[in-house]
């Protein structure tokens, strides 16, 4: 590897924390959408 882990900037966001937050937020959004899906069609 050319660079150490701490030096590598993630794509799109300034730090990796934003990516982690995005993954968790996406999971929460999916759960909410699935919940609405379940309620709508039950």
């Amino acid at each position, binding site marked *: 590897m050319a660079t150490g*882990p701490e030096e590598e900037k993630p794509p799109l966001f300034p730090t990796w924390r934003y990516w982690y937050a995005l993954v968790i937020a996406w999971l929460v959004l999916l759960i909410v959408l699935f919940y609405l899906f379940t309620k709508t069609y039950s």
Partner: protein
Amino acid sequence: MSSLDWVVLIATLTIIILYGIWKSRGKQSMESYFLGNQSMPWYIVLLSIIGTQASAITFISAPGQAYTDGMRFVQYYFGLPLAMVVLCITFVPIFHKLKVYTAYEFLEKRFDLKTRTLTASLFLIQRGLSTGISICAPSIILSSLLGWNLYWTNMIMGGLLIIYTVAGGTRAVAYTQTLQLAIIFGGMFLAGWMVVHLLPADIGFKQALQVSGKMEKLNVIVTKFDWNDKYNIWSGLIGGFFLALSYFGTDQSQVGRYLTAKSVKESRMGLLMNGLVKVPMQFLILLIGAMVFVFYLYFRAPIFFNEAQLARVRNTAQGPALAQLESQYGQLATQKQQQVKQLAAALEQDDAAAAATAKKVLKQTDEQAQAVRAEALSLMKKADPAADTNDTNYIFLHFVVNNLPKGLVGLLIAIIFLAAWGSIAAALNSLASTTVIDIYQRLYNGNATPEHYLRVSRLWSLIWGVFCIVVAQFASGLGSLIEVVNVLGSWFYGVTLGIFMVAFYLKRLGGTATFWGAIAAEAVVLAMYGTEQVSFLWLNAIGCVLVVVFALMIQPFVKQKATTV
């Protein structure tokens, strides 16, 4: 299968093998063979991770699961995105920093040689046996549905991929997985579209969703907590998190995928993208199963989807009784066809009262049909006590073989092979890397030439391939193979995860305490399984906790200092 199906099947499999061989060309070293020279971009890592996790059974079983139990199985994957985040923060930077070939190399740097060798050995036993069983599981289904010889199906299922896996190593595995997944997703999309297309002309996707929902097949989220219920949001988030963490963090078949990335950044992106796409992907596969359920409300379903099993019972003394039950089941299916049309019409007209009545009537008839089916299953057991009366894995392929047009059947059967190849190829590569790096090079021959190690690596890929096929040939009599794989995993996954948890989070604990803690934990886990005190699903968590507890208890009696990496 028609001639066209055979052409599509053979052409698809040949293309994959040739593509794998083509990607194997060029000069190789052990680093390129096991790590792909750490040159892979994140999207190849992502597809390789997905291709390794998604076995043939994923595509066969998941739609059947939605057919029988609804879509709530998707909750099982809710812990996976969280595990991806933890892996990116903790595991990935350390594995890359230490430039390891296998996850178990890290354990020697953190602890000592004996802990590394123990963990690598546990992996080899578990992964070697479970890969053999993974070859056999889809082979049994295909041979039963299509009348193929089981031994030859096993040979093709586990044998042809050895050509490019032995020749090209991890690079060939990763690139073939990419092409395999493109074909798999294309085929599954076509299958999903065909299910809706084959419904009666006045039933569109929206109406199919409404009917499926009323029949409780779109139960994606279950919020009620119940210890005895495997699939609810809580077991999915908590249990799924630990399962995904142990699988992606400590199983070399997955660790080997993201170690091929050209940087920490690419590894992280591959894993995080997996966290983003995995849940929607499983949702869509399950949705196909929910649509197949609607299809079989409008068109008659067999009383049991494993037709070969059904035929065997017909030729026994229970045959006449079974014929009577099949007749009853058929009459109820005809009633359901009328009732589902009434339900769809009421839903179309937004007539809530009529829809509620139609739903109640349809559910009553469905319950009667299920009672008749239960009697038929009981007859099957009488006729053959060893018979597997779970037909979940046969539902989707039964639909495919009997309803899809020529050509598409061949493509869907090819998809089963490709899905199996993707996960088996990665498993063989990881078994070879662990054997060569953690056992052969470390314990027996550390000073050979790079050319020698490359030859040995190819030889071990071949040896493990043959071993897994041999296991597959003997696995058909083991009962539910999916359960056997899960039981095998539960014997070792928990202890392995426990060792890594101590390594990462309990820096004051040393190798000797962890090693003996793991040995004691493994003994307790196996004893608990033997005495049938708890369900095997709990052994993962118990094994992990026991390693930590035992290591903490032993550490004060050990003089060795803990090391940190």
